[in-house]
């Protein structure tokens, strides 16, 4: 099995007659590192940055283009405002519609929940159940006139049996 370096080497051999620089690089590399990958194109070129001072160049003032620019910006803003004011009610209506519908669903759900709780309360307070509980706890019904309601706002009981 051919290894990757061998493969590249093979390609190098089939890539036509090497130029002088390439041949030299290869030679150098062969000497330096036999396992180094093939050279990148223009690897032998070296770039360096040169500082150029353009501070002396000043763009010529163009009041006409500036005005045009500001006009464009102003027009865009006006257009944006117009569009916003045109579509805002519709968007607000849609958002309010979502909220309204969600609230309606919530209202119906809560009403149903309340009815369910009322039913549960009625079942818990049914006379048959209370009678059964009273019998379990050895309670008896008070006789006529025995119960009287306490006045004011009592902290605990609202009625007492004499």
């Amino acid at each position, binding site marked *: 099995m051919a290894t990757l370096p061998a493969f590249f080497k093979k390609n190098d051999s089939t890539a036509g007659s090497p130029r002088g620089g390439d041949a030299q690089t290869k030679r150098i590399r062969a000497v330096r590192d036999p396992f180094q990958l093939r050279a990148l194109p223009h690897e032998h070129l070296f770039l360096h940055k040169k500082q150029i001072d353009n501070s002396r160049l000043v763009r010529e003032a163009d009041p006409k283009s500036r005005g045009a620019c500001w006009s464009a910006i102003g027009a865009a803003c006006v257009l944006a405002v117009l569009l916003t004011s045109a579509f805002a009610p519709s968007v607000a209506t849609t958002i309010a519609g*979502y909220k309204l519908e*969600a609230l309606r669903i919530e209202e119906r759900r809560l009403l149903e929940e309340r009815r369910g709780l009322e039913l549960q309360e009625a079942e818990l307070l049914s006379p048959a159940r209370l009678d059964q509980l009273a019998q379990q706890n050895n309670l008896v019904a008070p006789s*006529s006139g025995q119960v009287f309601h306490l006045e004011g706002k009592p902290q605990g009981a609202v009625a007492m049996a004499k």
Partner: protein
Amino acid sequence: MVERRLTCLAVIVLVWGAAILKNLISLQILHHREYAVKARSIQEVEVEIPAPRGTIFDRDGHPLAMSLATRTAFINPMKVDIGVASDLLGYLLHLDRGELYLKIKQAADAHRGYLIVKRQLTAEEYDNLLNLKSRLDWVSLSNQSQRHYPNGMLAAHVLGAVDFEEKGNAGIEKGLDAELRGTPGHIRLLTDVHRRGIAPQTTIPAKPGTSLTLTLDERLQFVAEREIALAVTAHHAVSGSVVVMKPDTGDILAMASYPTFDPNIPVERGEDAQPRMNHAFSVPFEPGSVFKVVTYSAGFETTNLRPETAINCNGGKLTFGIRTIHDSHAGMWVVPAATAFAKSSNIGAIQVGLKVGQVNMHDYMVRLGFGQKTGLPLPGESPGKVYRLERWGKTSLASVSMGQEVSVTTLQLARLASVIATGGLLVKPRLVLKRGDVAEPVAAPVRVLKPENAITMRQMMEGVVLVGTGSRARLAGYSSGGKTGSAQIYDYASKHYTHTYNGSYMGFAPITNPQIVVVVTLNGTHGESGFGGSSAAPVFKVVAGEALRVFDVPKDLPENIPGRTLVASNPEDLNDLAIADLGESRTNILEESEEAESAVVGQAGYPLGPPANLAAPVYGPRPVQTAVPVAQGPPAVAAAPVPARPQGPRVPNFRGMTMRAVLAEAAAKGLSILPDGSGVARVQSPPPGAPLHQGERIRVQFAR
């Protein structure tokens, strides 16, 4: 070259623009409506707003019946792969897959296209199915409403029940179905891509059913049902009913019928209909001795009969041609009318009836509401039966006088008792207190008896409790009046009266200002313990006692009753059976149709007992000490002496007492107080020592 290219480009753009314009015209103008409808059908959904059936409350606002929204899943068994459906739905709806498989298979085998898989889906189950529904067209979901009766069997006969469409099929659910049913509303809702509602387009608001507040009192209804069930079981009766009524307004506080049913459980095919029958309202019966109240009332109105008038009970036996009538109390000869009534003498009642005459008797039966429906908004009311005068036979007057040849319902008897309790006013029974928030008006009562005669009847009925057949109905702490009744049940097969009875008791309390009327009927009792005085009167005692307690009615008698006043303690004294050997083979009133006519006009021409007016006036409950002049036979049985009524209650002195002390003393004495202010009692009205009238409240002003 360039120009040519530009021209080509312009032509292409023009053609392209024209094509777009053409499509726009087609979309926006030519087919606008069609596409708009299509778009709407996609974007809009129609949502039904449920309108719950009206809730039914008792008079204190406790719900007796209410509806809850429920979600139901159903499938078309003909369109499903049974295995897949049972596996899928069993998993999603938490059902047993095997059972579901069998259920779907049976439905498919029966070629049913509709099968409810599960009712009352939870929110999770509903969401699961909703997601699945878009891919499976055989699953359907529906939002329905389900009726619940939170108290189970309580007031089942009054409330009735609903069918699977929540349409009333019995009781007030049927009688006022149109009002109770709501009209669902609809919203056309614009939705987004996720089917979330954005804004309603058109809305038809839901109209919920009208809530009804009944005159029933949940606590009294429970006690009445409990007691009638116990009595029916104890006396081996077939059925029983109780009606508790407010005499002044006609409000029905309780209407119990036994056997009963649970309206939460739907009717099964082939189910016995007996428990679903309202025996207080739909099942007429021969009343027996309780009907003597009509006879004596008519006697007071149309003749010179008074409680002290001597009546010849003929030793307890009377023969009309081939018909012999017996008294349950043998040996009564000439006695005051009050005693004959208290002891429930059949002969005495016949004597009074004969004196009244057929025309008057019939007139008063009709006046007192018999043979007519009471008009309650319940289906299946029986009007009872009163023969037209032309159909009365030779012995009809005698029979009717003691409660035979007439059929009544328990509710009609309650109405009769109300007439006596209100001083002669016939009230229209009322079951609905409020429709929504609107109070139902009380119908104006009609005077049918003179007040003095009604008061006299009231005293006569008190005598029944004190010295007569109704001693077991006597209340602790309250005076009461009543009448027992024990009627033999007619056997249609043998055309004879049997030894099973309708035991009944009709009463009210307290005597001076009656606050409640209670009528108890037991059907199919046996033996002496099945007579009205033994079987129905104890039920009256418990139910009336509870009603008086619930309505906080002040006591008018000492709590402890001296033993010596219980004069009618042996079974013989409770016997009020109307015994009649029917010599003529006459069809019983309960088996005859209205059309079967045998127009025999009878005339009142029977011999009366000695109409001797006694020297001293003797009213029902008062002691009879006078020597009764006897025309013939052995000496009359006089009413047993009764201790004098205690002196009327006086207003105690509350001045200087704290509010707590005043309330405690008032509660101990059974008085009703209207406190005002705070501190110690300064002023009271009525003043201390003043006679306290029945039902009167004492206003006490407190100040510091």
